[in-house]
């Protein structure tokens, strides 16, 4: 037990500290019905990393981080200006297109680099088991800072996600606040992808938020339910990864999947009782 704690303490801390903000942002994302925007932004960021590799920067150097952040900002700009009311071109379609085109571009770029395959795999599944203390603390610092900004301007951010028409009627600059939202969201996603990979970041964003939407209506209760779900699933996933010796990131994703399954079963029983 002592030994397992020693080995798993930083992955555990990463999975306890970092999803807090992801779950909150996930509620925004689910409400805006742009579920795949995180995959898309992560892929745009990965394209920046690919370019960095081609320019011979190490994947974890600041140059490569700056490149992926720069690309994320461009992605944030794209998603800001494609938020349309027109239903003839749903934003989800554009998000999907950005995802596949940047993924294909990444493959083209990395076909000239020997580390290509390894890097593409790493973006997808991450290495949460091998996270370093410095990585966890640095990312936690960033998340706290962005969390404070969100808390400070919560009226604006909540308005543009949950009631965009009302916000526009009150004279709020939707484009500006949208860009601020996507830019910070992209930064958060990029930082967490370096630790946990695309699969894990998607799961921490979306699964707890969906579970919460099944169980509650008020934002505050949804947030609490989301946090509890993320925490329990992380602990179960990490424990399973250690005791059955499974790849860590994938084990947590599956634990989150089980949590959702449990939630659906529980709510359908509740509905049956009400009927």
């Amino acid at each position, binding site marked *: 037990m002592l*030994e397992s704690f020693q*080995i*798993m303490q930083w992955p555990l801390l990463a999975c306890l500290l970092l999803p807090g903000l992801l779950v909150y942002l996930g509620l925004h994302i689910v409400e805006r019905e742009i579920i795949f925007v995180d995959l898309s932004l992560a892929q745009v960021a990965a394209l920046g990393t690919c370019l960095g590799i081609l320019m011979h920067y190490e994947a974890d150097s600041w140059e490569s981080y700056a490149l992926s952040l720069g690309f994320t900002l461009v992605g944030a700009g794209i998603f800001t200006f494609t938020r349309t009311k027109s239903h003839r071109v749903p934003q989800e379609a554009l998000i999907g297109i950005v995802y596949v085109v940047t993924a294909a571009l990444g493959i083209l770029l990395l076909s000239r*680099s020997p*580390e290509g395959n*390894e890097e593409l795999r790493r973006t997808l599944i991450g290495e949460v088991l*091998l996270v370093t203390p410095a990585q966890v603390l640095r990312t936690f610092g960033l998340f706290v800072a962005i969390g404070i900004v969100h808390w400070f301007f919560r009226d604006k951010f909540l308005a543009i996600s949950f009631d965009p028409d009302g916000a526009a009627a009150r004279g709020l600059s939707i484009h500006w606040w949208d860009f601020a939202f996507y830019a910070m969201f992209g930064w958060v996603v990029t930082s967490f992808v370096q630790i946990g990979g695309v699969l894990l970041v998607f799961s921490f964003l979306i699964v707890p938020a969906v579970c919460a939407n099944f169980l509650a209506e008020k934002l505050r209760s949804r947030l609490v339910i989301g946090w509890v779900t993320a925490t329990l699933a992380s602990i179960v996933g990490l424990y399973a990864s250690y005791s059955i*010796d*499974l790849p860590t990131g994938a084990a947590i994703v599956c634990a989150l999947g089980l949590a959702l399954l449990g939630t659906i079963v529980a709510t359908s029983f509740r509905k049956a009782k009400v009927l």
Partner: protein
Amino acid sequence: MKISLCFLFPAVLGLAVVTASARLNVVATTPDLGAIASAIGGDAIDLTVLAKPTEDPHFVDAKPSYLVKLNRADALIEGGAELEAGWLAPLLEGARNPRIERGKPGRIIAAEGIALLEVPSVLDRSQGDIHASGNPHFLTDPVNAGIVAAHIARAFADLDGAAAGRFAANERKFAGELQSRLAGWQKALAPFAGRPVVTYHNYWIYFGHRFNLPMDLFLEPKPGIPPTPAHLAGVITRMRADHLRLIAVQPYQNRKTAETVASHTDAVVLDWPSFPGGPGTETYFEWMDFLVLSTAKAFAAQP
């Protein structure tokens, strides 16, 4: 919590004493090193091999058990020469085991004492996945296996003096068997000296060097870079012009690429396991037997 810890502590200490007086905990990064370590250590060591025989040794995915094994290890055997550069360092950082730090007797770097081939004069990433200290796949030459076996035996004796005699005896047995088998392998391949084998990755250069089989044509345009149509067309042209008829692929490489090239050149695709450890190739000697005999058979079957 405190009370339970107090109860645990004597048990943990007891456990540590028992394992210390028992067998050496050895971790090897790749199965070829594992096979040699097992021949030397016998039942005086507890051996764990990280990479699977079918896995690409350049990229190995981390699992929690790897950290546990590395954390408890008395000795770590790595190939060195940057073979494990992409994955071993973060694992070691996570395992936090001072006994196997670089420079400690518990850290055994097999490449030390080996004359490496293809040491680059200029380092340039544009040349593909080039290893700065030379080609790291040196255990495809059985003579190098003998050097590594002696190295491992010395290191084991330093770590566990009580079993030093057993390690030395096992090493003498390994060296003797190597000597007699090497003569047989060389005899089996002698009729085909100078006949090239096309390989997917620049993995077999030491094998080719030992048995005089040129291996300078690869399906990869540069080490680590997936085959491109233009490069494969060039390979096919050269194979036709020089009548090259053997293409060797390893388990983790794309066999379809080799089959496509073979269908255009009347060549035969040979499946060469990268490492000992598969069925019928458990030990280093069985593995080398398989490589030599399958190659000799394929050459003999050709016009």
